[in-house]
């Protein structure tokens, strides 16, 4: 398409597209929120159904989960720094902060998987009881979201290197950061309802 021949205002169109997409993404996040609400509800219903297996108080190690949590919360902060850099059009800083965010996210995911692995090795897999099914599914779904977030982050970083911080790229970064912060908020609820309440037997 030749831009010279058109009367269309490309900047206005792009701005409108950004607005539409951002709003649409918010709506998507809310549907995801309902999805997690469903998982939280099932977890809460099943958390007492240990069927002779271990309860949360016996399984969860709070200091470990706290480190995991701090890794994720910090990654949200660094993701915010990447966004600020994007607004300054500073590509190097965007990439640097995204890299830090990626590593923190990877740390979080690694810690979570190692926790899962230990539980399974101790004979407490998702097959053990209704409680553990609920636990693995709720926490695992969040982990799956983090995995997709990391893939997305890697792809967006490559695009940023290739294309620079165009309007369309900044839109994509905004969506990515929305997604990442959203997962952070969900984790705070998981940390509270699953781990804190669970470890204290509330």
């Amino acid at each position, binding site marked *: *398409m030749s831009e010279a*021949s*058109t*009367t*269309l205002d490309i900047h206005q*169109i792009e701005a409108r597209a950004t*607005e*539409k*997409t951002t*709003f*649409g993404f918010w*709506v*998507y996040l*809310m*549907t*995801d929120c*309902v*999805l997690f*609400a*469903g*998982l939280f*509800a*099932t977890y809460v*219903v*099943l958390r007492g*159904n*240990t*069927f002779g297996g271990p309860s949360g108080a016996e399984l969860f190690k709070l200091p470990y989960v706290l480190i995991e949590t701090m890794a994720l919360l910090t990654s949200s902060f660094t993701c915010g720094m990447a966004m600020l850099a994007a607004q300054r059009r500073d590509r190097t800083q965007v990439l640097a902060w995204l890299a830090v965010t990626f590593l923190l996210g990877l740390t979080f995911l690694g810690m979570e998987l190692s926790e899962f692995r230990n539980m399974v090795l101790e004979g407490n897999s*998702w*097959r*053990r*009881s*209704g*409680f553990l*099914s*609920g636990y*693995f*599914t709720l926490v695992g779904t969040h982990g799956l979201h983090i995995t997709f977030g990391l*893939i997305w982050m890697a*792809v967006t970083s490559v*695009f940023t290197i290739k*294309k620079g911080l165009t309007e*369309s790229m900044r839109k*994509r970064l905004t969506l990515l950061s929305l997604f990442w912060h959203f997962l952070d908020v969900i984790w705070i609820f998981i940390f509270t309802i699953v781990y804190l309440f669970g470890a204290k037997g509330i």
Partner: protein
Amino acid sequence: MFASLLGRLSWSQLPQDAITRGGAASIVLGALGIVVLITVLGRWKWLWKEWLTSQDPKKIGVMYIVVAVVMLLRGAGDALLMRTQQAAAAGASHGILDSYHFQQIVSAHGTIMIFFVAMGLMFGLINLVLPLQIGARDVAFPFLNATSFWLFFSGMALVNLSLVIGDFSAAGWLAYPPLSELKYSPTVGVDYWIWALQIAGVGSMLSGINFLVTIIKMRAPGMTFMKLPMFVWSVMASMVLVAFAFPILTVTLALLALDRTLGMHFFTAGSGGNAMMYVNLIWAWGHPEVYILVLPAFGIYSEIVATFARKKLFGYASMVWAIWAIVFLSFTVWLHHFFTMGAGANVNAFFGIMTGIIGIPTGVKIFNWLFTMYRGRISFKSPMLWFMGFVVIFTIGGVMGVLMSVPAIDYQVHNSLFLVAHFHMMIVGGVVFGYFAGITYWFPKIFGFRLHDGLGKLAFWFWGTGFVLAFMPLYILGLMGATRRLDHYDASLGWQPLFIVAGIGACLVGVGIALQLLQLVVSIWQRDQRRDLTGDPWNGRTLEWSVPSPAPAYNFTTIPVITERDQFWADKQSGKKPVKRYEDILLPKNSGASVFIAGFAFVFGFGMIWHIYWLAILAILSLVTTIIVRACNDEPEYILTAKEVEKMDHALARRKEQYV
């Protein structure tokens, strides 16, 4: 080694009995026939470029409706089999189907009719009409829209594949556990059900987001919310419900799948599972789903009544409030589907009262339509007949529903044919009649010619009388104690005559469907006599009638400016002609990526159903790769220049003269 690569798949999974073989053969031959026909006509390239990869919502809408109509034929075939079985299987006779096969047909009928007929017709009509009604050229996310359709298509393909390889769920259309758990349903049937609905359901959820954003962000300048056509209001409400309810379905299906494939214990009878939780979750989606389907149909009725009564819609504001009251209340009634589960008198009382209350906004709407007709100059075209049939049948069904909202009465008729009669009157009388009316009403806008009205009316009368004949006896049978999903009963009960009457009714509905197909064929045959040259065949009120028929790909040459509620009507009254100003238009390019994404989703579902995990993983990786490749595309749109638009516009005018 080789065997394990194929999971549970083996030759013995091909159909063994005559009826299933017939069904499988008709699916395979039907698909082959289409492939051969297209190849012989040399139309593959045309099909791919003009339809399959198209991102024009009007074309996507047509594809939705084509799929839904084909599925309607399959679902109606299932219905006729069930009616035959129940009319025959009394006493010594065991009818034509064995018990397990009958249960599969019941489950397939419900699943197909709700997910692939009603949902398909709904999204089809929304695609056709919504952008036109709000003065937009497209939906908010055209690519996502095409992907939604193809996901819907993949789900449909999985359901039908179950007839050819393996079997289908025999656990009812909502697959209650523990029956649907691996222990009691060890075959692939329930897995087919899960993955077909999961894939189609994700498509529906994406559509919900898409249309919601379209309505909120893409209305023509001046079209404030209280100037929206009623169909747009009802779609907005329905899409809000989709966004809230479909994630719950996704969760519920996923948990059942985890139980069945990974051995989890969400809904199992032992090991700390809780089957009652499934029933709560599925209805927390399922009840809003009923309103997701019926609200757009209400919107269609509102458009049709106003048009054919030549009056503006009575009580516009109260209609809007009624819609939103229904949206809110629809999330407060789900427990009425299982009063007998024993949640306790107080809980049952609450949900019973809320269920009664939801009848009030619905009643408001019925009266508003009747008052719109009052003193109108009504023209009794076939869409109007569907509407009036709806009022009668829906009101009968609705009153029965309010009756059942009293828990004490519900205990008597729970799980009986009384309930079956009630919800068919709501879904067929309310939803399907509405979508038939809508298709007849908007057909000329999409194809440029009207459907044969006489045959449409005849089809309506067969449908209407057949339907009443098929379902009124079920109320009586339900009160006599006949339960749903009954494949055999004792002759001494005296039920057989009523079942035979119901069977005759179903046959009449079958004639109605045949007449609708005939109507389509005759109308295409005589299309030149039925050309809509004005773009406004019914003397309509809303914006879609202000553009030529068939509507051009870009919908509007000039985006209209809105000052009135029924803008087009007001313009006709004042004799105002819209100013034509040609401008450059941005349109989405075709993309095959949607087809591939949904194709990989299909393969993924197939792999999960048959436990061919390497295939499922491969499919998911391909799917993600396709999305990433698509995301690389920086220019998903092209510009139609003002000159080209002008040329197309003149071509349209010339074609019009040719017919005049």
